């Protein structure tokens, strides 16, 4: 289909993911071979020109991290790949690891070469058994072929990568919680600054990126940053892997250039709503993303419009908005690490109040309290979990406020416990 643009997914289905030879035969590790002949500065320049931004949801410019690491006095440095893909509605990193694992490794090795990092970690979501097995195999192959380990491609540069996994906590997808978990501690975030590029793993400079971000790097070096920057929109360059799920007729992972219409992607790639039903709403980015009503989806897929990590969750006419909000709130209540007050205590009250709304027994002042709470959580939580957990509620109140208020108790009571 024409609206797709397959760069990161170009080899999907064409190569055996367990075969490094297949990868090499299809252009793999060429970028690394070229990179080790380049100055680190010019590699960074290419990435800056490409305007590559982080694909894990935060969309931070990748070259700034590379530059920051290079500028650190401390020489012990780490490259970390966030493969914890725990955000409900996202499953594109799994495809990247299971269908073309070397692409991400190549991106990591190039990043290590640029920053002279000695050690890399891939933090893979505990539930992703298959991804873990494939990535471990890929690492062994890369080591055997001299792309990893001691004296990479006879350059004298040493770098190796280790696979780590969590015990299933959603919060470990958050960069500092992930780093704490890597260090063997409980997954709880740290205050920023300092950022990981300054004090990350074991308080050493660390470049931490999503699987898809690393997977982009070899392609940028191959096609050149300027060429890459021709794809996409002003704010968002390149392609994005989107995961279409929910009540879509054709669920799956698709690679599109930034800027295509969300509506088109849903209709043409996702096949619209299954069983001929009406679309009621779409949630973007994941469980922590905004909920858009069906008439507000004629927007481009880009970082200015909340695409985040790329989840597109379709919900049809049968879906009750309050049910969705309760389900999400319960998820975040369960997954909060408990470190900061707004997230630890706030999610509990969001669940409590939304359940009352669901039961038709909440008062208007309770709903108002939830609204104020959502605002405070977004503004004051320590990490992305607490800051984004109330986003579905906050956006739903804007679009579906009347429906939600219809579920309130008719009389205002003093009781609110």
């Amino acid at each position, binding site marked *: 289909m024409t609206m797709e643009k397959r760069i990161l997914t170009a080899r999907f289905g064409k190569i055996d993911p367990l075969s490094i030879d297949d990868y090499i035969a299809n252009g793999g590790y060429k970028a690394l071979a070229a990179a080790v002949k380049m100055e680190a500065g010019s590699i960074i320049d290419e990435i800056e020109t490409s305007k590559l931004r982080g694909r894990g949801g935060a969309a931070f410019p990748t070259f700034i991290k590379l530059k920051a690491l290079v500028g650190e006095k401390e020489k012990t440095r780490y490259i970390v790949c966030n493969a914890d893909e725990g955000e409900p509605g996202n499953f594109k990193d799994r495809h990247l690891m299971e269908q073309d694992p070397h692409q991400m490794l190549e991106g990591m090795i190039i990043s290590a070469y640029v920053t002279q990092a000695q050690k890399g970690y891939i933090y893979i979501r505990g539930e992703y058994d298959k991804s873990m097995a494939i990535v471990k195999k890929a690492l062994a192959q890369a080591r055997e072929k001299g792309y990893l380990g001691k004296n990479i491609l006879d350059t004298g540069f040493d770098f190796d990568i280790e696979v780590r996994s969590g015990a299933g906590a959603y919060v470990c997808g958050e960069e500092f919680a992930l780093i704490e978990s890597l260090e063997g501690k409980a997954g709880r975030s740290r205050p920023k600054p300092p950022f990981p590029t300054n004090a990350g793993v074991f308080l050493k400079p660390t470049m931490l990126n999503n699987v898809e971000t690393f997977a982009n790097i070899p392609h940028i070096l191959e096609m050149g940053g300027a060429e890459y920057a021709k794809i996409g929109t002003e704010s968002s360059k390149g392609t994005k892997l989107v995961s279409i799920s929910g009540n879509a007729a054709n669920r799956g992972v698709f690679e599109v250039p930034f800027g295509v219409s969300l509506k088109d992607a849903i209709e043409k790639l996702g096949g619209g709503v299954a069983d001929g039903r009406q679309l009621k709403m779409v949630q973007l980015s994941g469980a922590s993303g905004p909920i858009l009503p069906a008439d507000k989806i004629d927007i481009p897929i880009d970082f200015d419009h909340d695409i985040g990590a790329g989840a597109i969750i379709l919900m049809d006419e049968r879906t009750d908005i309050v049910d969705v909000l309760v389900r999400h709130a319960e998820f975040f209540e369960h997954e909060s690490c408990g470190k900061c*007050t707004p997230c*630890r*205590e706030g999610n509990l009250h969001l669940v409590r109040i939304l359940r009352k709304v669901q039961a038709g027994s909440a008062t208007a002042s309770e709903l108002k309290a939830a609204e104020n709470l959502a605002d405070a959580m977004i503004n004051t939580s320590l990490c992305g979990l607490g800051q984004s957990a109330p986003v579905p509620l906050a956006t739903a109140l804007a679009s579906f406020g009347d429906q939600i208020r219809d579920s309130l108790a008719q009389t205002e009571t003093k009781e609110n416990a």
Partner: protein
Amino acid sequence: MVELKINNKPIKAEKGQTILEVARDNNIDIPTLCYYPDLDIHSECRVCVVEDDWGNLVTACSTEVRDGMEVKTNTPRVLESRRIVTELMLANHDTNCTMCEKNLHCELQRIASNLGIKENRFGSVWEKKEIDDHNPSVVRNPNRCVKCGRCIEVCKEVQGINVIDYMNRSHETSVEPTYGRYLSYEDCTFCGQCSSVCPVAAITEKDETDRVWEALHDEKKHVVVQVAPAVRVSLGEEMGQKPGSIVTEQMVAALKKLGFDRVFDTDFTADLTIIEEGHELIERVTEGGALPMMTSCCPGWISYVEQNYPDLIDNLSTCKSPQQMFGALAKTYYAEKEGIDPKDLFVVSMMPCTAKKFEASREEMSVTGEDPDVDVVLTTRELGRMIRQMGIDFDKLEKTPFDNPFGITTGAAAIFGATGGVMEAALRTVSEVVNKKPLEKLDFETVRGMDGIKEAEVELGGNKVKVAVAHTLSQARKVVEDVKAGKSEYAFIEVMACPGGCIGGGGQPYGTTNAIREERIRSTYQVDSTMKLRKSHENPVIDQLYKEYLEKPLGHKSHKLLHTHYTKRN
């Protein structure tokens, strides 16, 4: 240099300072809860949020100032956020404030009050949890806990013990000993630093003031009290005076008003400790014995060795602490002298320390084999509570001296309260006893102050001898690891478990910081420098005590009353 504005006021600050530091330097108040000076910043509570010029709410405790920054500390958005965060904490908290140990001293209460919270829009989700009072020194009440993490931080980073940490997650997060066990004495050294930094009443000293009141009101009991050196430089603070105020004689007056029959000074048995411990050191060096010898005055340190370094028990001095020497003498010598049946004698200690409660309860610490030598140990904070309960106007008390026979003391004993003090007092005596000539200079400045590990070298009988002083258990660990590895070059090591020594003890007034510790240390040395007698071996009453009762240092009676033994625990 950084130039910024806080609430439109132009301010100059140093690069690297946080918004909170700069604001406080400029008398702008920002409420904090999880923040504690001297501890690492974790920004858990989110109470200290302020608005920056980018429109973000940032935590003042963790955010460094930048040039051109404009900070607003009291916008409606800031106040509403603080209110919500505080209401959330209160909704999961036992808010029966009037029945709380920390009523009127609670940091959460003060924040809520300053924010004007009259109603909690989130109601209450608090569920009653079991109170853990299985520890002889501190009580853990999870119903009051706000999960700020200060206790964890002080136990982990300052003491290196880590007997409590976060358990579970989300709203089930709790601060507990491993696997939710009781804070039992296998793990805890009873230092009580956790209770001293807790902003609420989630960890408090075990309050035993009722037992003291009961004894004071019992006509049959002869109730005596001893007061540790560190209390006279901190009780004033507890009663609202400035840090480091020296209130020795007002303190004695207050204790008399409370109804104690005699008010004695632990400094007296501190002098006695120096005589015994000094001779023990000389004996070990000259006749052979486990070296380096390590001090034994600090019960937190003793527990630490018994639990973590049982192989080094022989290195500990066998001397009881001054508190326990006092207790033993009170129930024997003093009782005999005064013709009181030891059963009717009730001995109370006023200590800067929660671990002393445990020490007094050790079964070795009973010369009669029935009652403990020291019946009740109260902390400085509990003493303050008693004075307030009695309605005593502390500032207006007439100066009153200690009672005899345990009231004549020296400057050497006075400095026991500061880190390095025991070492300095011992060196003053040991060098004069061994070298048989007066010291030219009494002040051993290298062992003073807040550095974690300090050293000194002295000449004893023609040999150069190295000694070391450590305070906090994480610093002590470094010194002890060397001893364990056989690498230690020291003959004598002083360890105090708490930062700054006893003046920074776990039972001292709330709000103790390193800056306040320095004030108390300064006052401690001031007490020493103004005393007529400054060496323990010059205390005439100690001399008389040996002649009259104990015979000689390390003698038979001394061994029975003044020395003890230790047990491998855990």
